[in-house]
Each structure stands twice: as C-alpha cells, then as structure tokens.
C-alpha cells in the first residue's frame, strides 16, 4: 500500500500538478470553448439556450476526455516506455502493478477533474442545474464511457515515432470530435458523415450524457456501442503491443 501511495503521489505531480499540457488541453481549452459558445456565440429562445448550455457541457466534457486520452495519456505512456521508466519499475521488487493501478486511478481523476471544472463553470456561469441522481448517472457514464477512448489512447502510445504519435493524435481527435457532434450538432453534417459519426465511441458517450441530463429515456444501444469499442480498443492495444515487441522496441528501451 505504501508503494502504491508513493506511486500515486509521484504520478499526481507529473500527470496533473506539473503537467501544463493536461491543464491547458484537457481543462482550459474545453472550458474556453464552452464559455465562447454559450456566452458569446449563441442566440435563440431561453428554453433552447438553457438546453444548449447543458448539452454543450456534456459535449465539452467528452471532448476533454478525448483530449486527455489521445494526447496526454498516449504521450505519457509512450514517454515512460521510451525513457526506461517502466523498465525501471519492472526491475524493482514491487513490479509494475502499482504503476498501472496508479495511472488508471489518475485517468479517472483527470476525467473527474474535467467534470468538476466544466460542471462548475456550467453551474456558476450558466446556472445549469442537475439533481443529484443526474450527476451520479453522469459520473457513471463518464467512468464507463471513457474506457474505450482510453484504450485508443493506450494503443496510440505504442506508435514508435514521436512525430507519428502526434500526427495520429491530431488526425483522430479533431475529426472524431467533429463527426461525433462534439463541436456542433451532428445534424449539420452530410448524411454519409453522420452515419460514420454515429458509430464513434464519443457519439455513444455524448448521447448517453444528453439522455441523462435531459431526463430522456436511456438508449441501451449506446452502452452496447461503448462495449464494442472497448473490445476493439483492447484488441488494438494487444496488436500494437505485439507489433512493438516484434520490432524490438522492448529491446531498445532497456
């Protein structure tokens, strides 16, 4: 337990407290978008605006998780392997289990932090109001819904070259955010793009959040979509790991 707590403290410093890219990309950027779109670039009836303030909060939280997984987590895991940190832990008597548990813990905390920051802005600035049951459901969906996205982030971390990782993170994150309706309504997109967008993991998560925050009936097919993406993401992690081992990255890192 002492080793785990030391690992948590160590990772908390580097992943959150002293990690400007997480604070900027995963918290400040979505928060800035949220304020921009709900305060400066909005028109319509009071009811429509109220609804938009809630649904856009959902969207920006999913966007924040997407950025966290595909940029922060992917690059941190890659760096830990490239710089021999995971090798160092593998060689220690306590092994890598405390490290992976701690990373998972901080992934969840980072998502929670996104909810707190964006939810706090939505409540404080736009008077968004959800009851306790809605917030709990909201958190539950975030915890489950982030899993397939994190799997994609973990798979990306196995890309060998730093510049390729950056390219892949950019090519996945922003198109996925757009076609799954995180930036603007999916209905504005061409039909064929909507068809693709409605199969993305971020769409399923965002859809579930919208259903909870608008008290609509929860469509369980979204959960099935999340589960399928989780399986696909896990398979991708296995394939990327095997590929990396075959290419001898494990040799190089040591």
């Amino acid at each position, binding site marked *: 337990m002492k080793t785990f707590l030391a690992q948590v403290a160590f990772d908390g410093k580097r992943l959150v407290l002293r990690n400007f890219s997480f604070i900027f990309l995963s918290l400040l950027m979505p928060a800035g978008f949220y304020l921009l779109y709900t305060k400066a670039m909005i028109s319509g009836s009071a009811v429509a605006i109220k609804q938009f303030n809630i649904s856009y909060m959902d969207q920006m939280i999913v966007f924040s998780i997407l950025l966290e997984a595909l940029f922060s987590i992917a690059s941190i895991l890659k760096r830990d392997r490239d710089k*021999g*940190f995971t*090798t160092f832990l593998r*060689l220690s*008597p306590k092994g890598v289990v405390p490290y992976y548990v701690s990373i998972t813990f901080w992934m969840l905390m980072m998502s929670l932090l996104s909810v707190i920051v964006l939810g706090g802005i939505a409540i404080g600035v736009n008077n968004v109001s959800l009851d306790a049951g809605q917030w709990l459901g909201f958190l539950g969906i975030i915890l489950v819904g982030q899993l397939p996205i994190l799997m994609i982030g973990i798979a990306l971390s196995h890309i060998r070259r730093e510049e390729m990782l950056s390219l892949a993170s950019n090519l996945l994150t922003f198109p996925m955010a757009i076609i799954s309706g995180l930036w603007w309504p999916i209905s504005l997109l061409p039909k064929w793009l909507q068809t693709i967008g409605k199969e993305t993991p971020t769409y399923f998560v965002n859809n579930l959040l919208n259903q909870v925050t608008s008290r609509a009936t929860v469509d369980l097919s979204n959960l099935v979509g999340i589960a399928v993406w989780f399986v696909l993401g896990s398979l991708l992690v296995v394939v990327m790991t095997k590929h990396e081992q075959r290419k001898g990255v494990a*040799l190089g890192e040591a």
Partner: protein
Amino acid sequence: MTTIIQTEHLKFNYDKKQVLKDINLTVHSGEIIGLIGVNGAGKTTLLNILLGLLSGEGAVSVFDKKPGNPTSKARIGSMLQGDMIIPGITVGDMLKLAAEQTEHALDPDSLLADLNLTQLKTQRLGNLSGGQLRRVTFAVALIGQPDLLFLDEPTVGMDANARKAFWDQVEQLRQQGKTIVITSHYLEEIQQIADRLLILQNGRFTFDGTLQQLQKQHLGATITCETDLQPAIFSGLADVDQVHSMGDKLVIHSRNGDQTLKALVPMLDRLHQISLNRESLEDIFLQLTKQEVPQS
C-alpha cells in the same frame, strides 16, 4: 566464493539473427566484471537476459533463481543505457519513489550527500545535463543497497571530474564486496577497475580472464628510448613492426616486446631512458575486433 550469476549454453535469437550463440558464464561474489565488445556484440542483450527483461534458451540463474524473480530483484541494482527524463519530476521525487520499491532502501538524502548530489535534489530531471542524469541514475541503482550491480555504459556524458568521482564510488563498492558487471566503451576505465574481462564477439566470449592474462596472449608493446643510432637499424630487429622518431625519442612498435627487448641488449650502451609499455586493453581490443563490423 558464492556463485552469483551462472549461464550454461545460453542462446538468444532476435528475429532470425542469433545475437548470443553459446554463453557459459560464472560470476562469483565480489567480482568486478568488465564486459566489452563492439556495438551490437550482444552486451546489452546479455544484461537484459540476466535482469529478466528478455528470455533466452539455456540455463540462467542469478542468486540461484531464474532472472526476474522478486527475491533476486531486491538484491540487484541496475544502471541501464538511457536516462529517465520524466517531466515534472525532481531528483528528490525520483529517489523517494525508488526507495519505496525496496525493503532495505537507503535514506535518499544521505545517499545524495554521499554521492555529492545534494544540490540537485530539487532540480527537475528534465533540466539536468547528461552527466548529471547518469549520476542520478547511479543513485537510483544504489538506493536499494544491492549486492549485484549492472552498469551499462555508466559514464557516458560525464565530465572528467564526475567520471573520477563515479569510479571512486565503484571502488568503494568493491571494498564492500559488491559484485558488479560493467559494460563500457571507455576501455581505459574498464582496464582500471575490472578484476576480470569478458570479450564478447559475434555472440560468444572470445576471452574470459584478467587483463594480465590477456596481455600474455597479446605480447605487443611500445618501446621508447633515446639514442644516437639511426632508426633504420631498429627496423630489422626481431618482431619490430614500425619505428619512428618523436622529438628526442625513438618509438619502436613491436609485436613481441620481450623478444625485441632481448634484441636491443647488445646496443644497451647506446640507449638511454628506455621504457616498455605493454599494449593497453584498448589496443588489444582494437586488434581483436578490427575485422568485426559494428552492428549499430
């Protein structure tokens, strides 16, 4: 003497290439082993197998257990190639985490003081120079008070003072009876510290013994003297390869220093300030490996 490391007929293939072919090695407690070879000879692969990071064919034991066993891990410290540059983390944070990985850890502050690194404690790893990072990596390797240390290219990036301080520290570890396996391309340093040399060529040990034993196999030497005789006279002497003048001195390169010295005896009254330098480890290594093409 207790056996610390034992390998029998160890082989390792990477893709279709046989990196290690038939490695038979016994290391006893308290030995300092200098493992040398050209790039790609298989040194790091061998260390990785002994550490349990890779698996080879054949029998391997470290502290009588399979490599990677948690009990033996607690007795091993390693300083591998590359440094852990972890953004946002200070030297103090790193040592604190390393100390939590083992039961018998030294106090990080005392260790930093012993290694003269206290001034780096609050510095971020990303802000350190290459040499400073190697010294911090050494501190991390020592924090668990290991009985066996693997040092892979330990002094890369260190300045002359840091290198001296590092080797002094290794000498202290020798006094404490630690077993140490070192790989380095700085052969003059290996020559100074190692009790036993292992030369790895094309996946096999082509030499296993002391520097003196190696020098007996390779009798080459450089003889320097002052003389009024013409250099051409010396060219025809036994085993002389090359003769040239350097200032007032005459330098004779010989394939067999003892034989050439005997041949010089009749001229002794015309020779002054004679000195004979046996071939260094680096000279012998260069001869042994001149046919070998570095792999990387």
